[in-house]
């Protein structure tokens, strides 16, 4: 124990790198705010910390009463916890936002084109842009879906693109979440809390509203309904149930869209048509926003032991009688090994260079990359290609000697399971801590909706903040918190 503490101290010293870019203060170490943010700096400076604390606690009390909780797997004691909320918002200027949106739309269109291609003609493999075995032998690639066209050709209707920032104009995509990205309820609830607790901020800033998200999501779902469905397609949210860690979000979305929240037992497939059991008898279902992973969605096709799934659902989907949001098989697009090819993928399908760059990525499956990774383990972040939630990950600069040695052994044993990335000096945003306001690292997840003929992104998203000093891990399961993300309306003539 003693030595572990000692080692951690040493690591802290090694971390004493130049200060990260702060989104409010730039690199001035709190002396001078960036021009767009002087008003926010004034607000932070003029509001007593005790008052900020009071408001923050009021927000957390409200979240707890509403039951905005999440479960941490493997943590019985705290089966229902709330994610810490930070009262100081993170702000994007209108110009920053419009640049981001252009890049996000380009990327998500490419992701859908890529999925359509690899489950169809596989031109990108034939043209040698991506090694075939990387796709075809990837556990995320679902051979059952080959040749299956989803209604209106849309695969990834909802994408949560994880972004990080290192400077005024340096944004990078860290991860594409094309399966069932969560967190959008925090975008909406955090905004509600801010409107109630810090109304003066909305007088200082012209903040673009985010509350149209449920309506846009509903529109997106209706737009991809099978052509056989009527004028008012029946849409539902499918949840694994109220013991799932994200159940609050599932019920929140169903409630705000105004559609039913169903569990597998509420659905039944008869002759390739999906029905839900209601008090008035069976009702035909056209579009399912499913918050269940592919592996569990239909025990007849995927894991036979799944009790969460609906037997026959995939058959109904293949018959074109129901739209699944997102389509099965989209996991191949957010696989971390495929991620490293995203710049090529975007160029291949859009004919343009990617507007949003990737973080430099070493594919450990390649000999040179593995060599480099092994030599620089203490500087790199190493991730499992199929890991998520911050698990199975090595953050070199803060890791102990033992952890590094442990990862070295794992890397040599199964290099193809890992990628490595340089440790980025993630931007910071002022955050309320026990010792007053201090910079904390953040990332950002905007939500991109793809319908039958539109790609849209609500001006906002989920900002996650690593509450531990110096930490770069923002995952809620590992001590991360959230902030509201303001997108300012573009001021006419100012650009």
């Amino acid at each position, binding site marked *: 124990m003693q030595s572990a503490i000692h080692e951690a101290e040493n690591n802290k010293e090694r971390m004493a790198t130049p200060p990260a870019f702060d989104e409010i203060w730039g690199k001035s170490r709190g002396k001078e705010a960036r021009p767009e943010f002087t008003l926010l700096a004034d607000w932070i400076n003029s509001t007593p910390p005790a008052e900020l604390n009071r408001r923050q606690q009021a927000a957390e009390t409200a979240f707890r*009463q*509403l039951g905005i909780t999440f479960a941490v797997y493997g943590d019985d004691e705290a089966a229902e916890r709330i994610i810490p909320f930070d009262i100081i918002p993170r702000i994007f200027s209108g110009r920053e936002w419009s640049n981001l949106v252009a890049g996000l739309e380009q990327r998500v269109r490419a992701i859908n084109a890529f999925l359509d291609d690899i489950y169809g003609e596989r031109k990108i493999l034939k043209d040698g842009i991506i090694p075939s075995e990387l796709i075809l032998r990837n556990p995320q690639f679902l051979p059952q879906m080959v040749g299956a066209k989803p209604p209106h050709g849309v695969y990834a209707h909802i994408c949560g693109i994880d972004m990080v920032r290192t400077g005024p104009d340096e944004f990078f995509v860290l991860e594409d979440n094309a399966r069932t990205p969560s967190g959008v309820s925090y975008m909406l609830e955090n905004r509600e809390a801010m409107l109630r607790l810090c109304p003066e901020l909305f007088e200082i800033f012209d903040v673009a509203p985010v509350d149209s998200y449920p309506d846009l999501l509903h529109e997106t779902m209706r737009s991809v309904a099978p052509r056989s469905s009527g004028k008012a397609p029946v849409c539902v949210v499918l949840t694994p149930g109220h013991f799932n860690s994200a159940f609050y979000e599932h019920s929140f979305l169903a409630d705000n869209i105004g559609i039913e929240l169903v569990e597998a037992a509420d659905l039944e497939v008869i002759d390739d048509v999906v029905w839900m059991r209601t008090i008035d008898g069976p009702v035909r279902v056209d579009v399912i926003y499913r918050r269940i992973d592919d592996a569990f969605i239909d025990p007849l096709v995927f894991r036979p032991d799944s009790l969460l799934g609906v037997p026959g659902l995939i058959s109904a989907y293949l018959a074109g009688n129901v739209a699944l949001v997102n389509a099965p098989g989209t996991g191949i697009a957010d696989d971390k090994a495929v991620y490293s090819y995203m710049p090529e993928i975007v160029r291949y399908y859009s004919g343009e260079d990617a507007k949003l760059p990737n973080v430099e990525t070493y594919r450990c499956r390649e000999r040179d990359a593995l060599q480099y990774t092994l030599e620089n383990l203490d500087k790199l972040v190493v991730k499992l290609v199929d890991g998520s939630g911050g698990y199975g990950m090595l953050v070199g600069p803060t890791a102990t000697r033992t952890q590094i040695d442990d990862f070295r052994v794992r890397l040599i044993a199964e290099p193809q399971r890992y990628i490595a990335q340089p440790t980025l000096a993630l931007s910071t945003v002022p955050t309320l801590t026990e010792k007053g306001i201090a910079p904390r690292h953040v990332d950002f997840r905007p939500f991109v909706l793809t319908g039958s003929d539109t790609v849209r992104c609500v001006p906002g998203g989920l900002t996650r903040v690593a509450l531990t000093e110096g930490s770069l891990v923002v995952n809620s399961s590992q001590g991360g918190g959230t902030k509201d993300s303001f997108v300012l309306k573009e001021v006419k003539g100012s650009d």
Partner: protein
Amino acid sequence: MLSRTALNLYWTGRYIERAEFTARLLEATIRLDSLSPRPAGVNAWSSALAVAAAEYGFEEAGEPLTPSNVARYLTLADENGSSIRSCLRNARTNARAVRTALSRDAWETINRAWTGVRDRASPGGTQATLNLIDLVKAETRGFEGALHRMLHNESSWFIRLGAAIERADNTARLLDVKYHLLLPDDAEVGGAVDRDQWTTILHTVSAVTAYRWLYREGLQPWLVAEMLILRSELPRSLAASMEEVVTVLTALGRRSGKQGEADRMARARLTKLKQCRIEPLFQRGLHEYLQDFLADVPALDYAIAHQFRFA
């Protein structure tokens, strides 16, 4: 509305009602016990178990029949699926699964009631038990208040339906157990009665004052029975409970334009109650009458489940 949602709401209503009834039963039993000469108090506790349909479970648990053991079994025992804590846990689990069908107030009262009993190790002494009972009564009353402020639609109807079915069942069982114990077969109807015992019944259904309003004759067992069975002015009477069942089923049927077996059964039972008078009922046998009624409740419950496709 999803059948599962309706099912969860129905059981939320049943469990909250059962928690409140058990709390009242326990309160009245404590009162009866302290009025009784020792060791007659033990009868009070064994009949409380009978009313709560918990005799068998308590025997299984293998504990001696003492007031504190029975109090614990009825309030906090996790092995008793109908203890107050089990009821509130089940009510909350059902409510949480359909969180969005409830108003915020309704959810919060259930959540608060649950957190109020969640971590209790034991009911404590008599005073502490009474405090616990007060808490449960206050929260369940709060829930009823919140329920009446919800939209008058399927959500509140299914909760009310569950509560009404549960209430009918509880009142009938209370009366049956007490009547059986109090008036042995050879006792004359209208003869000498144990005042305290009958007052206990009134306490359990919170009708002590109500009785004085409805009857001027002083405490008479057949009048108590009449009030609890036939007088629809008393919210916990069989007649009032069945009226509520019919009202709610009618509202549900009007919405969908369909009626079913449950409607028919509830109406038939209500008609019988309305046509009935207490004297002939006593002559034919109160126990037989109540047994017949108690057999009807699960049948009605089954018809409701079938009609709204709970299964």
